[in-house]
């Protein structure tokens, strides 16, 4: 339990800066925290997903009042295996390991695959396409390192009084977090 709590501790801007290169690709989220804090009252709370509780049920895609959802897949690169056969990117039994549509798991092809060095590949999320369905998250969780996870993106979220996804979430994964710490990230730090 302690581990779970640790994994999902809210990330402040200071934490982010301390972690530095560990979560370079996620620093965008960290920077947002300060910006949000300056625009909203200190006590303002916003909705967020605890990745340790998320069951990857698909409702983040279907229940949000926004279409597509304000929930997006986020990638903790520090945890990623940079696998050639990424189970978050490929369907369970791909014909070939290429970017052909029938081999991709994501229903909207929101994941980009880039060769880094034999045999390592980098996977990035195009948030403008992602619908927050969690399919890749489940593939990564089940076979990989769990580096893909879902977060409410606060550049999109309407911060509804009663989040309609939270109401339907079977994992009780939604909670209110301070606007100054709006993300619950999986990072090397939180995996400590």
């Amino acid at each position, binding site marked *: 339990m302690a581990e779970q709590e640790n994994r999902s501790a809210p990330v402040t801007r200071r934490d982010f800066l301390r972690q530095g290169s560990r979560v370079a690709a996620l620093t965008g989220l960290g920077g947002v925290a300060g*910006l949000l804090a300056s625009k909203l009252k200190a006590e303002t709370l916003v909705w967020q997903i605890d990745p340790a509780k998320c069951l990857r049920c698909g409702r983040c895609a279907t229940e949000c009042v926004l279409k597509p959802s304000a929930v997006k897949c986020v990638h903790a690169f*520090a945890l990623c295996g940079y*696998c050639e056969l990424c189970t978050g990117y490929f369907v*369970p039994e791909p014909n070939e390991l290429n970017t052909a549509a029938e081999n991709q798991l994501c229903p909207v092809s929101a994941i980009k695959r880039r060769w880094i060095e034999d045999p390592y590949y980098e996977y990035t999320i195009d948030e403008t396409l992602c619908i927050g369905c*969690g399919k890749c998250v489940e593939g990564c*969780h089940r076979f990989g*390192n769990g*580096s893909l996870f879902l977060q409410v993106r606060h550049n999109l979220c309407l911060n509804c009084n009663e989040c309609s996804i939270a109401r339907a979430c079977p994992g009780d994964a939604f909670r209110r977090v301070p606007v100054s710490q709006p993300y619950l990230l999986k990072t090397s730090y939180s*995996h400590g």
Partner: protein
Amino acid sequence: MPASDQQSTGHDSPNPNDGTPVEEMSALQKNPERSKLPSGSMAIGRGQTAFSRRRFIGGQCAVLGVAALGNIATGSIFAVAGRGTRSDNSENPFAYRVDRFEQTDPKLIGYVEARRFKSPCAEPRRMAIGGDERIYLAGEKRICVIRPKGSVAAEIGLAAPPQCVAVANEVFYVGFKDHIEVYAANGKRKAVWETLEGNPYITGLTVAENELFAADSGNRVVIRYQLDGKIAGRIGARDREAGMVGFVLPSPNLDVETRGDGVIYVNNPGRHRVECYSVAGDLLKWWGKPSAAIEGFCGCCNPIGLALLPDGRFVTCEKGLPRVKVYNANGEFDCVVAGPESFRENARAGAGSTSDPARIGLDAAVDSKGNVYVLDRVTGNIHVMVPKAKSDGAR
């Protein structure tokens, strides 16, 4: 940037998925945080694979077109999405489906479970079987010595969590994250070997008559030791100039086994294969292919554990679709010891559920009769699997 930036929490939010500063893997590997070891810290993260690197690169531009189609398709996805009750999730239109691989064809199962008992220690990781047929289990901060029927014969307390264990005559060797210790059969510590340099994470041990081999997941190499603790060589290291990709380990699950005949067997999970090396470090042969189907190794990185049967066959362990299988000496699929239906909780756990990948999946050890002991790291159960043909006698 999405058009909806000016909503209630309106601000110019950078995209968290932008700008991964990774231009080459070496930079990535130099990042100490990425390869920091799971034990007490964090979770981290093929040459002749079935597919060449060029074929991968070839299709990149196709993505954009597919993405556009995907966007159009999104509307219809929402239209079909079910709105069941909070607990009823049977309608998930985005479900990740591997059910067809979760039930093993009974005709392929060559073993039957003779008995099952609970690991006496928490967080069991790997095990070995001694000449006396006792099980040496590494877990928590101790080595548990277990009689074949499951009762505990001895417990040896340790200062740190052991990752793996190997048993020889009169002594056993314990692999810690960064070093090896030698213990007498009575549990008295005899020697502490030098701490390894670099980024060590020892996850597999095997001992032959005059030498010991340690699988170091952190440094991605197998270390050949003399039995006095001196390092005699390093096997399987990445060598760009020689075109050696080395061990590809998205998670720290390197294992090593030997029959003491001058050949060592090492799993290479990221390349979905088992590799055979001479003790001098020459790659002699390899076998295995990526596939969720029963003949292959599933997911991104399997197998995660090996054991050797007395008749020359191999036992392999997988995670994700937790299953234990036997391959013949040529690397051809032979039979299933136990399929995913035997490890339901393990399958559900998933690597993403723990900060320590060495706490998911399975490990296996073999006794002199060819019975396979399977450790479920999630439930802590040890399944004693006997070949079907002789199952009656062994019970």
